Structure formats: C-alpha cells, structure tokens
C-alpha cells in the first residue's frame, strides 16, 4: 500500500516550514491525472488554461501533443505556443518569455541524451524555480512506483516515468475520472473493461493517498492533531500467544479491503522468558510478511503504551486479544476495559482467547 508518513520531530517540522517557504516562491504545479490514455486529461488541462486566460492570466503552451482530435486541436489553437525543439520543451525560450502559466502535456516524456534535463518533469522543476506556474497532464502508467501494479493489470509497461514524489510535490492534483463504459463505447482503447476498472480504481486510490499526504503535512505544520478517520488505520496488538496469527490475518484482510494501513505493536517490559521471546519474534515476523508496519514499544504498563501509540498514530481500529484470567497479570487490572474506556474515536475489536485457554462456556 502506500509509503509511510510518520509524525515529524520539531527539527523536521522546521525543515518543512522552510521548505514550504521556498515552495511558495516557486511556481505552483497542478497536475491532471488520468487512469488510461484517452480519458480526456489533456482536454481538461487546456480547458483550465482557457479559463485562466479568460480571467486575465498570461498563459502559454510549452508542450502540446496533437492527437488528431478536431475538438482538442481547436482548443490548442487558442494558445500562444512556444514550440518544442526536437521534441524537447524549450526551457530557455519559456524562461525568457516568462508567462504566468505554462501548459505542459505528457509530463513523463524523456528527453534525448545530451538535453539540458534528462526528463520533462525536470524541465517542469526548472520552469517552476523561476516562479512560473505549470499546469500539466499525466497518466497513471507513467508513475514509477505504480508501474509494477499497472504491468500486472495490463501486461505492459510504459518506457518513461516520473517518480511518485514529483506527483506528491504538486500543489494540486486533479483526477480525471470517466466511467470505463465511455471508453469502451468509443473503442478508444485496447484494454478490456476489467483492466480499465482496475486502473481507474488504482488512480483514485493514488490520488486519495496524495490528498491525504498533503492534508497531513498541512495539519502537522498547523499543529492540528486529529484522527480524521478518512483512511482506515488498523493496529493489531501482539503478544507471544498463538492467537496473534488469526488477529494479524484479519487485520491484513481488513486493511486490504479498506485500502488502509496495517500496523502491529508489541510492548516489552524487561526480560521475557526465552520461549515467549521466540514466539513473539515469530509473530512479528509474520506481521511483516503480511505487510504490517511493526513497532516494538517499551513500558511497564502495556495498555497505557498501546493507548498512547494508537492516538499518536491516528488509529481507527484496534485489534486486541481477549485476556484470559491467566494473562491478566501482564496487563494489570482489566486492561481491555481500560482500552475500551480510552478508545475515543476508534473501534476496539476483541478477539477470542487462544484455544489453549478457552474457558468452557455453557
């Protein structure tokens, strides 16, 4: 699932604010993201350019791609075009012309060897560094970190790509969403409906992740600490008990279905018996195999640590094992009840005790 965004320390926060200030002097980047060719992302980009022109902004087109669509070509003719040189964006000419806004299509193009920048996305960065805003268009299959998944879906891999951090660094990202039916009907694509549907879902989830990332940065830099509960974040509390495997499997499945994050946590307090230590290590290894982010905490009161950690991590669901009488000592006084009391804003899912200590129920 996605990359990790941990809560920054004060130093990181300061760096972030400085970066943000540098960022504000730069031109803004807005990207139209499509899930497949022909969804209409270029159309949307040029529409945006037209609206900005209408509002009095100075807009030029720096990279255009004719697709033989009458409608699109007519739209492009409305703009002052700074022609590309050998299929490379003419960065010096754009900098000299110094418009407010530059439209650049096909952001993932590679430039030929010996060019000023190796990739078009680097041209974008250079143009932005001179305070010029860029509006661009890009397809999902060109985002490097998504290419493995796209290849699993379509069996094809695009030759050129941009790193995902380039997308995440954009000020704005717009998802161009079109029902797969519309593409199929127009016979515009070689992909089948299942493939298109999977690409469409992937693009939406990627966009959601970028939005969440930006929202988190915003909240961190404004000192807002809150679980927004938009993305499900599932925390599985692990001990050496065998039931941990069942809990982890449920957690992994729920995280996959919700497209959320899976975390696993255990709390150590001093020395553990060797057998327990080994069982725990095995469970943590299994957690990693299921894609969980594993955290080992230290503390004398396990439940206090878990509650604190869950709040800090904006957890929405906590999975915890039922504490049979025998293990209550470890948890202090009725810890599950304490967790339930403290779990403001999260669900607590209590799992049955490990089979060995199942009490006889009538």
């Amino acid at each position: 699932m996605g990359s990790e965004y941990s809560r920054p320390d004060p130093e990181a926060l300061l760096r972030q604010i400085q970066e943000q200030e540098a960022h504000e002097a730069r031109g803004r980047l807005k990207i139209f993201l499509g899930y497949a060719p022909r969804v209409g992302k270029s159309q949307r980009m040029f529409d945006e350019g037209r609206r900005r022109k209408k509002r009095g902004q100075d807009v030029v087109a720096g990279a255009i791609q004719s697709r033989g669509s009458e409608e699109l070509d007519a739209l492009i003719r409305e703009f002052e075009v700074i022609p590309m040189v050998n299929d490379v964006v003419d960065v010096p000419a754009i900098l000299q012309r110094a418009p407010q806004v530059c439209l650049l299509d096909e952001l993932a193009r590679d430039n030929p060897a010996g060019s000023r920048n190796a990739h078009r996305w680097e041209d974008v960065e250079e143009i932005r560094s001179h305070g010029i805003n860029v509006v661009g268009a890009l397809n999902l299959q060109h985002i490097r970190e998504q290419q493995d998944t796209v290849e699993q879906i379509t069996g094809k891999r695009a030759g050129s790509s941009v790193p995902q951090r380039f997308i995440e660094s954009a000020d704005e990202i717009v998802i161009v969403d079109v029902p797969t039916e519309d593409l199929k009907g127009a016979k515009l694509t070689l992909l089948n409906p299942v493939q298109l549907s999977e690409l469409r879902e992937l693009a939406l989830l990627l966009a959601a992740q970028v939005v969440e990332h930006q929202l988190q940065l915003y909240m961190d830099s404004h000192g807002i600490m809150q679980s927004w509960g938009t993305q499900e974040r599932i925390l599985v509390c692990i001990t050496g008990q065998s039931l941990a495997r069942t809990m982890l499997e449920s957690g992994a499945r729920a995280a996959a279905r919700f497209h959320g994050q899976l975390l696993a946590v255990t709390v150590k307090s001093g020395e553990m018996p060797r057998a327990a230590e080994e069982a725990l290590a095995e469970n943590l290894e299994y957690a990693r195999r299921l894609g969980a982010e594993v955290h080992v905490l230290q503390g004398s009161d396990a439940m206090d640590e878990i509650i604190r950690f869950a709040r800090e991590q904006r957890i929405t669901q906590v999975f915890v094992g039922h504490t049979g009488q025998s293990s209550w000592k470890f948890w202090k006084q009725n810890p599950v009840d304490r967790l339930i009391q403290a779990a403001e804003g999260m669900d607590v899912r209590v799992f049955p005790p490990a089979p060995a200590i199942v009490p006889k129920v009538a």
Partner: protein
Amino acid sequence: MTRGKLKVFLGYAAGVGKTYQMLCEAQERRRQGQDVVIGYFEPHGRADTIAQTEGLEFVPRQVFEHRGARFEEMDTDAVIARHPQVVVVDEFAHTNVPGAERPKRWQDVQVILDAGVDVLTSLNIQHIDSLNDQVWHVTGIRVRETVPDWVLQEAAEVVMVDVTPRALIHRLERGVVYSREKAAKALENFFTESNLAALRELAMRQTAHQIEEKREEEHFISDRLPEPVRGLQSNLAEKILIWLTPDPSTGMLIRRGRRVADYLNSSCTAVFVSHDAAMSELSAEQKAEVEKQLNFCHNLRIQPELIESRDAAKAVTEYARAHGITQIFVTRHAPEVQKLVQLARDMQVTIVAERVRHAQ
C-alpha cells in the same frame, strides 16, 4: 421491461461541477440521438450550468402548498408518462416537501428506474449514509439528508467529479457558487481547505470502493489483494451482528457495522433484546429511540430481530452462537458491554466508539 440504469455524478461539495458535467453528458446523449429530458434541475443562478440545459426538454414540476408557501418538486408521474430514454434528476439526496407522494427524491428515482427510464443524477459525498459520522467528524456538520448506501451500490455507474479545493475556493470567492454573502459564510464554516481536502479524499476512496464492488459483481472476480493476504480469504467469511440498545449512539453503531460489513463482504443483521414484546421496561422516549433504530436498520437493509429476555448480554451471545456470527458490534455506551465481552469469548466483539471532534 428492463430496469433503467442509474448514473451518479459524485462530488465532495457544492460547486465542484456535478450538475454541469451531468448536463454535458445529457447533451452528448442527445447528440447521439437519445431522447433526453430534464426531470429536475436546480440552476442556483449559475450561468454556465444554465447554458448547458439549452435545447433540452423540461418536464413541468409539480407544485405543492405547504404552510402557506409554494414548493416545486419533480413530477415523477409526468416523467414516467413522458417516458423518455434518459431523465436528468438533480440533487439526488433532496427531501421532498410534506404532501409529496414519496418523502425522498431518491425514492422517486427508484420508481422512474422501475419504469425502464435511465437516470442521470448528482450527489455529494456527505449525503451517503454510512459516511455520515465521518463527515461530521471531519467538518463538524451533521448532514440530515442522506441516501442509503445500497441505492448507490445499485447504480450502474458512479463518476467522481473532481476539482481541487483551491479551485473550488476561488469559485466561491468569485461568487460563482453562492451569492457573495452566503459564500463568505460558507468559506468560514464548511469550505476550509482542510475540510475540503478530507471530503475529497473520502469521495475518492468511496468511488474507488464502488468501482471495485462493481467489478467483482459483474465479472465474478475477487479483489487483487496483496499476495500474502489472498490465500487467507476463504476461511474468514464474516457474519456481523449489531446489538441495538436504546443508547443514542446506536445510530452511529448501525452505520459503522453496515460499512464494515460492506467492505468485508460480510452479512449484517441486528438484534434488540427487551423483557417483553411491549418493551415495558423502557420509557416512552427510549421506545421512540428504538423504533427509530429499527427503521434505520430497514433503510440500510439490515434485518433486525427482537428477542425477549431479561438477560440481554446472554441472549445476544446465545443468538450469535446459534446463528454462526463471527463478530458482534456494540456501542461502548451499551449498559452491558463488559458482560458481553466476557460471555462471547468464542467470537469477536467490536466495541464502537463515537468519533469525537476536538476543537481546532
């Protein structure tokens, strides 16, 4: 007769351009030769949007008098009598004026679909029932007009209409969406950049979820789960049971249970336990609350069962055991949560807490 197809243009706030995009599609279909009419359209004084209705036939609205005021609603019967191929119905979550045949516009739409007419409609994410608590949590606004999730799940297509929060805020500031006075208020309360970002993310995730469900349903293929998780599926079929109590947080519990069940492809049922059929142990107020919950369950297509017993936690546990339930959902304010957790040790118990908003 085949049922009409429903297509939903989903947005995350007023002004993102749902109605505009819906009308573009209506025009496109008309160009392709389909018989398209407008059943209901709310212009909000937006010139661009109004221009998109040009050349489309309007079915006259039905006029109602209510408390001395005049209200206009879609004339569902007239739409059906006209029997076009496609009808445009704006504002899917709208509540009809008292006296209209059906309380909700989405119910009118069901009738139109049953008559074999395709419907294009517009909806904002905050009106989806199961997201009600999350939307409140994010924005602090409790949305009253909601549409049950199953209605959306039955839609043939859901399209997300996206603009960035910044662009939307610009539109508001320029007075495109509301009058300037109303816009200023909206910007202060609801349309903050962080609110909008969170709602937008919800809309993206919801649309993605919808696409996935549709794909599984139409092509009988299961989700592309990550490798280690894929093999685990078969032995984990879930059955969720919601324990209803007179506590006011139960509405939130029902929504949460329904949502989790939908995501996990699990069945979802509910029980309410009382001493006797007359619920004699409850106050009139509590009875009304329970009545409301039972109705709410029906709306969300959850079948609630009534059990008579003086030991509620025990009765719920036994019911769950007898019905092969894997997970009991209960609000943490239910009177006997601890007892339930102790008794139902052979299954999972999920204690649901309300999402609390902290002052920002």
